[in-house]
C-alpha cells in the first residue's frame, strides 16, 4: 500500500507543476513554494512528521497521470481539474478540491471588449494538454463563434505571446490569469473578462484503488479547511492543541477520539499538517491571496460560512 | 627544325607580387613561333608563376604580356581568346574524374569552340591515337596509370588546337617508367613544330628538343642560352651551382 511505501522510503513523492506562479515554483534557494506545494507539505507532515521529507517531481501536463499511474509519485498536486473521464476512465482518484477555479479570458482593455461573447474571430493563446482546450472549443462552438487557437506548451511562452500581441486573448484558469496579470509591467491595461466558461475544481489526485491513502490525503486537506473554519491558525495551534472546549477541534487536533489511528496515522497528524503553514486560509493568503503579487480574492474558495464552497465534512 | 620570325609571346618588364612578396622581377622574354623553350631553376624561383601568367591563371601587376598579338589585360574577351590559343599541362594532370577520357577531351572543344560533338570526338580520337591510348577512350581517369593520365592531359590540350603549349613539370609526379612515355609524346609534339614552354628538370629532354634553356632564380631570368652552350658552358655562378646539383644526382 502507498502508505507503507511512503513510510518505508521515509519520503513523500509529490508531483507538482514544472512552474506555475503562486502554485509551484522554486525560490532562489531551490525550495519549491506555492499553493499546490503546500498541500504536499501538509501531507508529508501528517504522514511522516516532517514537511521536508518530500521529493518534488515536476511534471508536465502530458506526463502527470502516467507518473501517478506508474507509482513514480504518491500524490499529484498540480492544478489538475477533476473531471468525469479522468476520475472514471483514466482511473485516477480525486480526493477533494483545494481550489475552485474556472476558465477565463484575459484581454487588453483597449481592445474594447467587455464580454467573452464579443470574441468572435479572436486569436486565443492556450496551453495544450489541459481541459482548457476542450472547454474553449465547446464554448465557441456553443456560442457559434470562430476563433483561432494558438496552442503553447508553457505558461511563460503563452504570456510572452500574449504580451507581444500575438494573440488577442489568453485563456487559462482564472487563478492563473490573475497571477499572470499581476506580474505585468502594465497590469492596469489588461482585464479579465467576467465570463468564466467552465468549472475547474482543482485538487490533489492519488492512484486509483488505494482507499486508505486516498483517505489520508483527503482528510489532511479537510483538516486544513476545517482548521480555518474553526479558527485554528498557526499562531494559536499550540494553545489549541492543549485542548479546547470545542470537541470538534479536539478531535481534529487529536486530543479526543482516535481519528488518526483510524487513518493508519497517529493522533496528531492534523496538528502537524496545520503546523507547516497554517490553515487553508493562511496558505491561501501567503501564496496567492490578496497580499501577494498574485492577488487572488477568496471568492468561491472562501469558507462555506462566508459564502464560498470550501466545506470540510465533519471530523467525527 | 624551323623557327619562324613571328613572335608568339612577348613579355616586357613584367613584375608580379604575391602580397608583399616579389615573385617575378623585370621579366623580359620573347618567344617565337615554333620555338621550344625549357625553363629550369631552383624550387621557388618563380618558374610556375611565370608560365601561369602567360595564360592568366595568375595576374601580373606591372609590365606587359602579349600572346599572339593580344595583350593580356583585365579584358575578359582577350583572356578567353588567349586561353583557347594556349594549352597547358599541369604537374598533376588535373583530369576531370567524373568524365571519361573521351569526354575530357571533347568538353572544351564542344563548349568553348562550339564544335559539333561528332567532329570533336573524331578529333579527340585522333589525338588520343597520337598519344597512343585510343583504346582507353571510354575509361575514367581513375582507371589509368599516371603516365597514361598525363598523356590524356596532353591530348586534351591538343584538342583545342592551341598554337602554344605550356608544360609545368609534366613528369615530376610520375614513376620513372612512365616518365619516358610522356617525354616521348612531348618530343613527338616538338618535332611537329609546336611552340612549347616547358618547365622541367629533365635535362635529357632539354638537350634533345629545346631551342633555348632559360634559367631562373629569385624571380629573375638569370641566364638563357641554347642547350648545348647552357649545359656545357654555363656563365653565371648560380647556373653552375644548379647544374652541378642537377646533373650530379
Amino acid at each position, binding site marked *: 500500500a502507498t502508505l507503507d511505501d511512503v513510510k518505508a522510503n521515509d519520503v513523500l513523492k509529490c508531483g507538482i507543476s514544472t512552474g506555475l506562479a503562486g502554485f509551484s515554483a522554486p525560490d532562489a534557494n531551490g525550495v519549491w513554494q506555492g499553493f499546490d506545494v503546500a498541500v504536499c507539505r501538509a501531507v508529508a507532515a501528517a504522514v511522516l512528521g516532517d514537511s521536508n521529507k518530500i521529493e518534488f517531481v515536476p511534471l508536465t501536463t502530458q506526463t502527470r497521470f502516467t507518473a501517478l499511474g506508474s507509482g513514480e509519485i504518491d500524490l499529484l498536486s498540480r492544478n489538475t481539474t477533476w473531471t468525469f473521464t479522468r476520475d472514471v476512465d483514466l482511473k485516477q482518484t480525486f480526493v477533494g478540491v483545494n481550489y475552485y477555479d474556472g476558465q477565463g479570458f484575459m484581454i487588453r482593455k483597449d*481592445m474594447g471588449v467587455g464580454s467573452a461573447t464579443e470574441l468572435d474571430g479572436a486569436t486565443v493563446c492556450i496551453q495544450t494538454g489541459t481541459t482548457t482546450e476542450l472547454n474553449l472549443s465547446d464554448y465557441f462552438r456553443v456560442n457559434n463563434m470562430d476563433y483561432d487557437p494558438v496552442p503553447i506548451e508553457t505558461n511563460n511562452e503563452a504570456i510572452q505571446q500574449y504580451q507581444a500581441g500575438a494573440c488577442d486573448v489568453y485563456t487559462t484558469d482564472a487563478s492563473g490569469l490573475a497571477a499572470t496579470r499581476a506580474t505585468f509591467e502594465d497590469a492596469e491595461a489588461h482585464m479579465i473578462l467576467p465570463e468564466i466558461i467552465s468549472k475547474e475544481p482543482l485538487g490533489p489526485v492519488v492512484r486509483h484503488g488505494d482507499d486508505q491513502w486516498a483517505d489520508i490525503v483527503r482528510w489532511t486537506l479537510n483538516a486544513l479547511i476545517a482548521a480555518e473554519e474553526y479558527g485554528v491558525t498557526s499562531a494559536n495551534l499550540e494553545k489549541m492543541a492543549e485542548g479546547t472546549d470545542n470537541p470538534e477541534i479536539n478531535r481534529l487536533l487529536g486530543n479526543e477520539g482516535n481519528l488518526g489511528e483510524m487513518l493508519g496515522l497517529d493522533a496528531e497528524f492534523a496538528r502537524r499538517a496545520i503546523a507547516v503553514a497554517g490553515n487553508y486560509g493562511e496558505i491561501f493568503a501567503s501564496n496567492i491571496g490578496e497580499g501577494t503579487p498574485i492577488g487572488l480574492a477568496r471568492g468561491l474558495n472562501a469558507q462555506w460560512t462566508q459564502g464560498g464552497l470550501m466545506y470540510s465534512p465533519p471530523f467525527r | 627544325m624551323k623557327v619562324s620570325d613571328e613572335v608568339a609571346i612577348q613579355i616586357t618588364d613584367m613584375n608580379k607580387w604575391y602580397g608583399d612578396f616579389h615573385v617575378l622581377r623585370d621579366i623580359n622574354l620573347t618567344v617565337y613561333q615554333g620555338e621550344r623553350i625549357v625553363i629550369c631553376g631552383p624550387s621557388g624561383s618563380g618558374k610556375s608563376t611565370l608560365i601561369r601568367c602567360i595564360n592568366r591563371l595568375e595576374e601580373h601587376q606591372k609590365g606587359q604580356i602579349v600572346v599572339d598579338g593580344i595583350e593580356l589585360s583585365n579584358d575578359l574577351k582577350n583572356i578567353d581568346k588567349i586561353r583557347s590559343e594556349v594549352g597547358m599541362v599541369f604537374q598533376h594532370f588535373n*583530369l*576531370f574524374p567524373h568524365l571519361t577520357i573521351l569526354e575530357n577531351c571533347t568538353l572544351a572543344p564542344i563548349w568553348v569552340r562550339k564544335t559539333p560533338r561528332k567532329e570533336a570526338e573524331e578529333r579527340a580520337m585522333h589525338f588520343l591515337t597520337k598519344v597512343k591510348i585510343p583504346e582507353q577512350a571510354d575509361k575514367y581517369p581513375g582507371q589509368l596509370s599516371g603516365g597514361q593520365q598525363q598523356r590524356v592531359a596532353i591530348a586534351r590540350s591538343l584538342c583545342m588546337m592551341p598554337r602554344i603549349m605550356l608544360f609545368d613539370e609534366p613528369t615530376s609526379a610520375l614513376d620513372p617508367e612512365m616518365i619516358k612515355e610522356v617525354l616521348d609524346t612531348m618530343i613527338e609534339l616538338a618535332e611537329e613544330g609546336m611552340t612549347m614552354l616547358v618547365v622541367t628538370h629533365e635535362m635529357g629532354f632539354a638537350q634533345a628538343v629545346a631551342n633555348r634553356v632559360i634559367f631562373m632564380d629569385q624571380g629573375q631570368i638569370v641566364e638563357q642560352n641554347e642547350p648545348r652552350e647552357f649545359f656545357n658552358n654555363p656563365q653565371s655562378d648560380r647556373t653552375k651551382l644548379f647544374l652541378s646539383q642537377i646533373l650530379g644526382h
Partner: protein
Amino acid sequence: MSTVVDDGRQSFRPSMLLYDTRYRSLTIQVVAAILIALGMSWLLWNVVQNLAAQGKDFSFGFLGQRAGYDINQQLIDYNSNSSHARAALVGILNTLLVAFLGCVLATILGVIAGVLRLSNNWLVARMMTVYVEGFRNVPLLLWIIAIFALMAEGMPQPRDFREGGDASMVLDSVAITNRGIYLPMPVWGPGSGVLLAVFAASLAAIWAFRRYAHKRQEATGEILPVLGVSLALFFLPAIVFYFILGGPVSLSYPELKGFNFGGGLHLRNSLIALWLALSLYTGAFIAEIVRGGILAISKGQSEAAFALGLRPRRTMSLVVLPQALRVIIPPLISQYLNLTKNSSLAIAVGYMDARATLGGITINQTGRELEGMFLLGLFYLVLSLLISGVMNIYNASIKLKER
C-alpha cells in the same frame, strides 16, 4: 609418417556445434535468436501484466472517437467533431509540410552560406562563419523558442495595421504580423483551367526546347541560350493568356477584420518560426557540407578548366558542381532526415504536428499512451526509412558511374 586424419567429417558430435565452423555460426545465431525472443517476450509479458493491472486493453478503437479539440492549421477538413484518426492525419500532414518547406529553405540557406563562407569577401565570409558556428553549437530547441519569441515581439500586431497604427501592409497585399504572414491567395475563376493548360504546355515546350537545343549543339556545336528561353517560356505564355482571358485568376487580399486579418493565405507564426529555426539550424550544417564538397574539388580542377578556356560559369556547371554534388548529396539527405525528425520540436511553438495531435492531445485525452506512441514512432520510422531508401538508391546510382 602417419597422419592423424580427423575423420569426424561424417559423424556428428555435439562439440561440433561449438567448434565446427559450419555449425558454430548456426549455434550462435540460434542462441541469439532465442535470447532475443526471450527478451522480447519478457517485455511483452510485462506489458500484458501492466495493462491488466491498470485495467486497460490494447486497442486502436480510440482512433474512431470524437477528438473534441481544434487544430488551427489544417491541410484537410477537420473540426472538433472529427475523429482522433483524422486529427492524427492532420498532424501528419502538418509534419510533412514543415519538413518539406524546411528542407527546401535549409538547402537554399545552406548553399548560400556555404558558398559565401568561401567567398573572398572577408566580412561576408566571417559573418557566415559566425552564422554557421552560432547555429550549430546552440541547441535547436533554444533557437526555436528564441525565434518564436523574436517574431512575437519584433513584428507588428494586427491592431497596428488599423488607422493610425504604425504598421502597413507590404505592397498593400502582404501583412507581416506577429501572428504570422497573411498573403494574397489566388482565387480560381472560370477560365483558369485554360490558364493551367497553357502553363502545362509551356512546361512541355521548355522540355522540348531543351532537347532541341541539345540535339542542335551535338550537330552544329551552336549553343542556344537555354536558360533565357526557358524562363521566357515559363512566364510569357501564362502572362499573355492571363490578360487574353481577362484575368481569370484573381487574388483575395488579406484584410483586417475584427481582431485579425481575414481572407488571403495565413502562414502562422508557429509554422514560420519552426520553419525558420529548422532551416537556419539545418542550413548551418548544410553550409558545412557544401563548403566541404566544394573544397573537396581541388583547385587544380577549376584551373584546368580555365586553362582550357572555359568560362567560370561553365566551369562551375560542367566541372565543379558535378563532382561536388557527389560529395554533397549523401550527407545532405541525412540532414533532411535530421530535419524531419527535428520537426517534432514543434511542441515548443505549439505547431500542431503529428506529435502534438497524435502524440500529444490525443494521448492526453484518451490515456492511450501505449497505442499513441506506437503509432507515432511507426510514422517517423517509416518516414525515415523512406528517406534513407532514397538515399541508398542515389548512392548506388553514383557509384555505378564511377565504376
